[in-house]
């Protein structure tokens, strides 16, 4: 036999699998240049005093100090916390309850699901404008209830600085709960039918089965849903723009809007970069523990 004379020359390592590498160029560019490079770039420039144009003159933590001293930023953060907290709780609770209802082998399931999910197909702008109209104190829900005889009825969240963020929350829940319901329903459907049979044979009441058996089994679905809702919360922007433009005054400002306004309207890039870096930090605080739980900790998932 030919011994150690190798029949065909080993192809160049770089040229092997060349097509796959060519096909991945857009991904590599996006990942490295835009996602990684862009993020690093923004973080770096958040330490500069860039105004109209990005400039590399470092000013330490100045932008952050200014940011955390700005009333508008503080209100934005406060709004995000309130909005985030309630939208997480309500989405999960309402979404799960609806999914549990839908899972009772009901008729017209498809119709109900179609109705609950259609708002998710709409743009945040559309949702925001519809709810702006429904919550219009002169013509909307408030005026309708008043015309029924309850003349002191007050429901004008979009015109009341104290509760404006809840007005936005209502619209967000209208749009988003259908999706949570769908995810939860998929989770419920993924549970082995035999679990239900076993619980029935054992005589465990349905609500107890949900609470003690089903929900713990759906841990993964809950966590995934949580991450999906949470990363959506941080990005909330269009809805506020459409519904209130941040008003009344600055009462419904949110961080994403702060970033946009400082970058593209106030021409104060440094502030925009610092604020967006803070958003990044927030997301990291949500994502890193989840990623660790899901993919790290020695537990490999295919």
């Amino acid at each position, binding site marked *: 036999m030919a011994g150690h004379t190798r029949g065909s020359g080993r192809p160049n390592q770089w040229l092997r699998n060349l097509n*796959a590498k060519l096909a991945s160029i857009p991904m590599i560019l996006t990942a490295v240049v*835009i996602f990684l490079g*862009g993020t690093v770039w923004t973080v770096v420039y958040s330490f500069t005093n860039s105004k109209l144009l990005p400039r590399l003159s470092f000013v330490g933590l100045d932008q952050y100090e200014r940011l955390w001293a700005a009333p508008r930023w503080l209100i934005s953060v406060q709004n995000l916390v309130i909005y985030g907290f309630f939208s997480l709780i309500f989405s999960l609770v309402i979404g799960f309850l609806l999914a549990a209802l839908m899972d009772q082998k009901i008729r017209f399931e498809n119709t109900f699901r179609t109705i609950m999910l259609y708002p998710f197909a709409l743009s945040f*702008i559309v949702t925001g404008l519809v709810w702006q109209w429904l919550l219009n104190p002169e013509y909307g829900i408030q005026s309708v209830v008043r015309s029924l005889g309850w003349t002191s009825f007050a429901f004008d969240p979009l015109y009341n600085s104290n509760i404006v963020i809840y007005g936005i929350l209502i619209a967000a829940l209208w749009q988003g709960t259908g999706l949570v319901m769908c995810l939860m329903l998929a989770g419920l459907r993924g549970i082995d039918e035999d679990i239900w049979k076993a619980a029935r044979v054992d005589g465990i009441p349905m609500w107890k089965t949900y609470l003690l058996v089903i929900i713990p089994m759906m841990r993964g679905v809950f966590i995934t849903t949580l991450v999906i809702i949470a990363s959506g919360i941080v990005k909330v922007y269009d809805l506020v*723009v459409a519904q209130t433009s941040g008003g009344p005054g600055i009462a419904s400002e949110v961080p994403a809007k702060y970033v946009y306004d400082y*970058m*593209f309207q106030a021409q104060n890039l440094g502030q925009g970069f610092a604020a967006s870096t803070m958003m990044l930090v927030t997301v990291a605080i949500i*994502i890193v523990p989840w990623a660790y739980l899901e993919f790290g900790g020695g537990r490999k998932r295919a």
Partner: protein
Amino acid sequence: MPEIVAFNAIAAGIEPEAEKDPVALSGPWGRKPRRALSPRNIIIYGTLIVVALYYLLPLYVMVMTSLKGMPEIRLGNIFAPPLEITFEPWAKAWSSACTGLNCDGLSRGFWNSVRITVPSTIVSIAIASVNGYALANWRFKGADLFFTILIVGAFIPYQVMIYPIVIVLRELGVYGSLTGLIIVHTIFGMPILTLLFRNYFAGLPEELFKAARVDGAGFWTIYFRIMLPMSMPIFVVAMILQVTGIWNDFLFGVVFTRPEYYPMTVQLNNIVNSVQGVKEYNVNMAATILTGAVPLIVYFVSGRLFVRGIAAGAVKG
């Protein structure tokens, strides 16, 4: 399931036709009675119907308002059906509503959105599907690293990356143009689409890929002749995802295009929230419905696939 019934009867040691003993005859026998209006059903369906009405209410109000004239809106109640149906608000919203000095209606935004959505959808799906296929079947060293960065990147708030992209697009000379916006949609659609296609292709039997290689097919032949024809459902899911996602986008439209290229959502917002002039709520609602119509049609036509699409695309936020 007659076989199972028969089997159970045999397993219990009795013939289906065996005579019934007196004890069995006196107790409950046969089908358990079921009432359609049991308290449980009333609670379940009652709740579901109330919930459904809540979800439908805004759509109903939108349509009703858009069919009324302004005097009727000022007098009446937003839930009441129009006394006199008028399509004038629709016509105005489409062809003569004003944004700033421009008074040619939403139609311009509509056609802009079409010109943005169609190429963005095609380009992003073409790139992501080939890339997902490469990741699933033609792994190379380092591929997983780039893919991980891509997926982690999907969680980074867009605001963090917007300005660097502005710079890149400006350097490429496409900032403000439709091309620039198409590139942006391709970039931000890439994580979820690549994941979608990678997982789908990885879920296809690996032996099929091996068989094709033994048959001598290469990267592109396998993609076009074997994978593509088998993957139509996932392409439809990706299309639904992209069409609705890109059509509904607001932020990228406002950041990366000049006003003459503004997509429909941006123009809608400018029409409704413009401070000049008298508020014409009926026109606003007609415009809102028009903007929501495309994704709604996609939604109602595609049904189940849409659910699959958003379940996959929900990561996009």
